[in-house]
């Protein structure tokens, strides 16, 4: 219904609501523009003719040469590899650890439940600096050398809590009668889990895994405390700021952006198809 149509039928007050609605819609449009601008800049400048292998503030002409040489900086490629490796390992391990806990929290009442909830909540709410500093304190006290292993440990530690929350939400909307039906038909709990429960909570597990992967690949603060000399993609970029950013950084993050958007669109497309 348009604003003018309302004002004809019901007078001045509603005309003002119509105006407010138009203002609000305009504001939302501007806001969306604001959120997208830095991404547009990143993508545009990944195609810029930059001199001396450093991104330039001025537009100097279109080129795809940085895409053809996307992996020309060995350290950067290694760091990118570390990021993918860490995100993948953290995704798998945190989901494997979180799924049984999510089942326990959603389906049973037990004494340690309240305490578990507090620890999960604290793990999500704790600031990254504190999580990083505390893990580093532990590794320093144990004299544990920092590297890929300590990055794995740290990432799994913060991914678990998020994975538990996502999977638990999925488990709690399931009908428990399905499990009981399986048991009545003679399935052992083990068989019932793999044939009935697991397929039903799989979307939650996949969602938790994707979230864990996204959190891990993006993390800079916690990783900066526990990485030692090992660099991930965000750490490499953070370290390169002082000397100048090579255009390959924008190229790689444009590729990650495109990949992430593609996966998200496929995921929502599949969800829509399974609904209808």
């Amino acid at each position, binding site marked *: 219904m348009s604003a003018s149509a309302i004002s004809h039928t019901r007078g001045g007050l509603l005309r003002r609501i119509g105006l407010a609605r138009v203002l609000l819609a305009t504001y939302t449009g501007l806001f969306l523009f604001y959120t997208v601008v830095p991404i547009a800049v990143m993508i545009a400048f990944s195609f810029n003719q930059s001199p001396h292998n450093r991104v330039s503030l001025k537009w100097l002409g279109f080129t795809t040469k940085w895409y053809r040489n996307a992996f020309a900086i060995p350290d950067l490629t290694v760091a990118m590899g570390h990021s993918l490796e860490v995100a993948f390992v953290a995704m798998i391990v945190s989901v494997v650890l979180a799924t049984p806990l999510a089942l326990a929290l959603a389906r049973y009442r037990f004494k340690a439940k309240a305490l578990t909830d507090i620890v999960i909540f604290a793990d999500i709410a704790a600031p990254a600096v504190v999580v990083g500093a505390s893990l580093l304190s532990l590794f320093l006290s144990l004299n544990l050398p920092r590297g890929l292993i300590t990055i794995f440990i740290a990432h*799994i530690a913060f991914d678990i809590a998020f994975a538990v929350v996502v999977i638990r939400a999925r488990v709690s909307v399931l009908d428990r009668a399905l499990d009981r039906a399986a048991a009545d038909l003679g399935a052992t709990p083990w068989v019932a889990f793999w044939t009935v429960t697991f397929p039903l909570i799989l979307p939650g597990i996949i969602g938790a895994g994707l979230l864990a992967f996204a959190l891990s690949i993006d993390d800079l603060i916690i990783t900066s405390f526990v990485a030692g000399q090992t660099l991930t993609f965000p750490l490499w970029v953070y370290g390169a700021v002082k000397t100048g950013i090579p255009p390959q950084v924008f190229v790689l993050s444009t590729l990650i952006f495109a990949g992430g958007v593609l996966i998200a669109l496929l995921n929502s497309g599949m969800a829509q198809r399974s609904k209808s």
Partner: protein
Amino acid sequence: MPYLLSLPSWLYLTVFFVVPLVAMLSMSLATGNPLVGYVFSWHFVEFARAVDHYWVQLVRSFWYGTLSTFLTLVLTYPVAYWIAFHGGRHKGTFLFLILLPFFVSFVIRTLAWQFLLSDQGLILGSLKSWGVLPEKTYLLSTSTAVIGGLVYNSVAYYVLPLYVALEKVDRRVVRAAGDLYASPAQAFWRVVLPLSAPGIFAGFLLVFVTNVGDFVNAALLGGPGTRMVGNIIQYNFFDAQDYPMAATLSSVLMFLLIVAIYLYARVFGTESIQEYAT
């Protein structure tokens, strides 16, 4: 059975979340130096020294955190409201557009702003060449740039919980307010806003805690006058190698954040805390 299912995660979170916090607290009470190592010694003096040395950065972190959280709330509330109430069939698309920045690494997003705000960058450079701004104008290394970066990096974290809370508001209650002669403004301030309080709190928790502890925005967009407590913790761990000082500052930060969250919950009610804690 529930204990068996919980055991793996419990073990993991105990060893790599709870024990590290204890290790950090005990590190903050240790004495020594990087060459001979550190010994635990109930050395409480470190806390006084930390606050005495770095109270400026502590206060600044909480000031930046509060201001950026408030600005993010004010900027995102109308957007979340519009999508929840007037988004129609395209709600999902609008939310997806707002979440787009998540597909770009946090450090790259901040770097893009460094790029945009630099003295001869797209924004200031253009305005200067059109003669709108004097040549000397700069934004980088000011607190405006740091707070701007904090706000940009938190908008998506605030839109989501606000949207979820506003989506849950029963439309019939809003209509009932109108039927009882509340003006649209009154219906908003006295019905919709209070009902969206859980979303305001959830967003506050996410954004405030993250921003107070952040050091990346201050490092990339700020200068010597905008250092936050996160930068100081980093400096003490990696440059000064004063581990007890770094651990003490982290402990102080954690303690102050718990106090701030508690105060917020006391002022605005605790129901929403419990709702999100469980």
